[in-house]
């Protein structure tokens, strides 16, 4: 946005597509709970939640149309959180 000093306008079609994507992913995350995945339950739930968060970040929060530095920052934060979760599971999976 700030690169060229003008606002980027996202077409309604994109918004609706993303909304549909979010609804499908939500339905999927509910449906997947009926399958017994053992230790992978949390992984699948987190992956689906991450996919949804990324859709919101990229389209609704305009990350895609912004300066690359913001994407780098978000990637860095994501990496930190993923590392924290992986390290936490070094406890739970090896007890």
């Amino acid at each position, binding site marked *: 946005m700030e690169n060229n000093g003008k606002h980027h306008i996202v077409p309604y079609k994109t918004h609706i597509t993303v909304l549909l994507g979010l609804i499908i992913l939500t339905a999927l995350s509910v449906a997947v709970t009926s399958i017994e995945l053992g230790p992978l339950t949390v992984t699948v739930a987190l992956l689906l939640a991450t996919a949804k968060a990324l859709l919101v970040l990229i389209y609704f929060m305009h990350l895609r149309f912004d300066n690359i530095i913001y994407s780098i920052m978000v990637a860095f934060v994501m990496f930190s959180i993923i590392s*924290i979760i992986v*390290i936490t599971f*070094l*406890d739970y*999976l*090896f*007890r």
Partner: protein
Amino acid sequence: MSENPTRSIEPSYLKYKGRYGGIFAWIFSTDHKRIGLLYLWSIMTFFIVGAILGLLMKMELISPGKNIMGPQTYNGFFTLHGIIMIFLIVIPGLPAVFGNFFLPIMIGAKDVAFPRLNLTSWWLYMFGALVVLTSQFTGGGPPDTGWTFYAPYSFQTPTNMLPAVTGAFILGFSSILTGLNFIVTIHRMRAPGMGWFKMPLFPWSLYATGWIQLIATPIVGVTLLMIIAERTLNIGFFDPSLGGDPILYQHLFWIYSHPAVYIMILPAMGAISEIIPTFARKTIFGYKAIIASTVAIAFVGYFVWGHHMFTSGMSGVALYTFSILTFLVAIPSAIKVFNWVSTMHKASINLQTPFYWAVSFIFVFMIGGFSGLVLGALATNVHLHDTHFVVAHFHFIVFGGTGFAFLGAMHYWFPKVFGRKYDAGWANIGWLTFFIGFITLYGPMFYLGIAGMPRRYYDYVEVFHGGNIISSFGSIILIAGIAIVITNLVKSAISGEKADQNPWGGITLEWKVPSPPPLENFDEIPHVTRGPYDYS
């Protein structure tokens, strides 16, 4: 830095007449300098309360048996002491006071990026503090869990947990907003010509700290909400009888609270990195290495939280991983110490009070750091866990590190903040008394811990008496030191001799504006052409 120092005819920020008068000119001011002072006075008030609680606990421990308080009062005291000292003092500490005051000036800006958000942070801080303190006087009595609110006790204790936990949650927002504000300010508002590697080290440390505040604090926020949900709705996150896991609480709590240690110590290291080159009158040794170590500490610091839980029953793999990662943090910390010492090497040092605070910071920080390695080793940890050794270690790091750096920074920037000089004689006496008291108070705790004295008990067996007598007398000396330092600074702020614009011969931007600075700091935004510590 800038070749053209700015001289202002504007009234100073202390005298500026705004929209409101009296106290409202302060509590509704969006000026970063006034907000910095609001934090200073609030933190000082809370600190006096926390220090008195600490003194009373040491008086209880001066001899075995009940002296001035029983077990329940003692439990309440160490909980409140911890909450006040951690959440209300050392976490906001240097960023909220000196970060607010000096970050914009040091990077050549007129204010932070979001001045109103900045004022909101202070209001949230005060509101959170009020909610926390309400827990002392209402409901089932003062919380007795310790500042860590460990599950399952924190959702079982009949004491008044909810206000304490809710207050800590609100304080977290204050911290997040300050961190966000500083990150944006540093990205967007540096003066022309001030590239990332022309920025002084204190703003660099605030930048790294800002990221920790931003990423780690929400985790403790969610965790505290989980405690509230557990207590009120019996959900079963942490309660084993409901299928929960108490160790999950410890993970979540320390995922924030260990990086919080770096929220405390990084700005302290930043302040020390400002003081040493100014009084050594020399460029700092390894400027980029210090930046790299700051960022490395902030980053690796996220992944070491498990060393608080070595005896909690984690898996072996987790134990080894956390122990190795903990040892890794020592590397960037040591890089900084070597850089500070190398800066002093062959320097023509101007011995002044801030420098005394800075070198004593290095001394106590190293003792704290080395004892941290003892605790980070798996085998020794089993012996020392929950003993006075741990208490000594974190007081050397948290109080020794942050406290010495805070008071060093206070003396260093005092002429700039208040436009007056402190009484150097009393300042030196205050520092020496404080230092002797500090070592006498916390030094014996290492011995007591190794001998096996557990922490968090109001009573002990006779064999620990000797060490406790020395430690308790140390607390009296320390309190005397604190009283001398605070009295001297308050008195000097009111009636001290007028200070020059640049009493120490510093070359970062804050020394190029009048003392005290005008409302918008600079008449004209400076153009930076030289490095921050270029004494050539």
